[in-house]
């Protein structure tokens, strides 16, 4: 970090915006590839589970009724018990949870990545973002 701070200070004194050496440290290139991969895999896995749930809908009883539109699992416990009984909506809910978790996972991976760069200021910033995300899940509990 000391090095990066130094280079940004130096930059401040250079009036022009032109020709600067690359600032990205080598380790961060690898990290961005990992982060990009997390996003891709997360979307693909959740899409597959959503699709599985949709396929189960006409097969499993009670899937497509008016009542089902408004009654569905919203907690991890309900989802889990639904999965064990092959409840279609439980699979879809799981897919939705994974979809929501994908960007959260990306943030968690960024903590590690900034840590590897020894950029501790950003480790703290990223932990703050992660905390907000985690807290948000609890805030909706109890319904409207």
């Amino acid at each position: 970090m000391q090095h990066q701070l130094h280079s940004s200070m130096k930059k401040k004194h250079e009036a022009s915006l032109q020709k600067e050496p690359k600032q990205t440290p080598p380790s961060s290139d690898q990290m961005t590839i990992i982060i990009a991969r997390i996003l891709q895999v997360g979307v693909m896995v959740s899409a597959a589970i959503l699709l599985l749930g949709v396929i189960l809908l006409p097969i499993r009883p009670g899937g497509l009724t008016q009542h089902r539109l408004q009654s569905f699992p919203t907690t991890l416990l309900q989802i889990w018990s639904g999965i064990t009984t092959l409840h279609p909506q439980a699979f879809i809910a799981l897919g939705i949870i994974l979809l929501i978790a994908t960007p959260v996972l990306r943030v968690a991976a960024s903590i590690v990545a900034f840590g590897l760069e020894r950029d501790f200021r950003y480790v703290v910033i990223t932990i703050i973002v992660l905390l907000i995300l985690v807290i948000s899940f609890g805030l909706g509990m109890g319904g409207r």
Partner: protein
Amino acid sequence: MHLSILLLFLLFGGAVIAGVVGALAGLGGGVLIVPLLTLVFHAPIEYAVGTSIVAVIATSSGAAAAYVKDRLTNLRIGMFLEIGTTIGAVCGALLAGILPANLLFILFGIILLISLLPLIFKLGEELPQGVKNDRLATLLNLSGSYPDQNLGREVSYQVTRTPLGLGMMYVAGLISGLLGIGSGTFKVLAMDTVMRLPMKVSTTTSNFMIGVTAAASAGIYFSRGDIPPLLAAPVALGVLLGALLGARLLVQMSNKRLRLLFLPLMGIIALEMLLRGFGITGL
């Protein structure tokens, strides 16, 4: 709403079209989901918003992966500003639980109309000149560089008015959480016009931020029971496919003219939402 297999297919098909049009119009794949679900399928707006926010995460995660790889995204700026967008999104989602439905319709119409402005007027600069880091930007090491393919060289940039940018990001997050949209327009506005980042950096960083912002409000919508799986599954899958198709089509067509082509359609949808908010239905 009547529920049948046919309805699921119609939802899926509608979401594919919404995804394609949203992407081609340059407003993101998720922006038309709320109008689709409320105006066409007559779903309650809280279900529509909850479903839409899931669709936004799906499209943005799919797209963001590509942007990170070409080093246009500034991960530091994105992460720092996400403090503002996520807090805003949480506030927006909580507020949406209290506000009356017709007010949400009106707000949606207004925000959609505002989002159309950058498609007509060019905001910000491609390569801003004479920008100096403010104190916070220096402290947080926000300045950076990216390889510009058109110019064939590395372009360095600095960042200004960071606190104001963070404040605007809170507003962008609030809008996203309240209405179930990515609110990319407002994120770009904050980075581009306020913090004066190069256009390419602000648009890609904005795309990168949308998913995390949406996740903050999606958690609330989910646990509140406002994301019905029977709507979310066909819509998320449809919009994902639609956005992919849209992005593919965009590469083949010049997009400036194309965006203007969709402008009247977007305007009509915004007006329909407004009218619905004022209790006037059917046109």
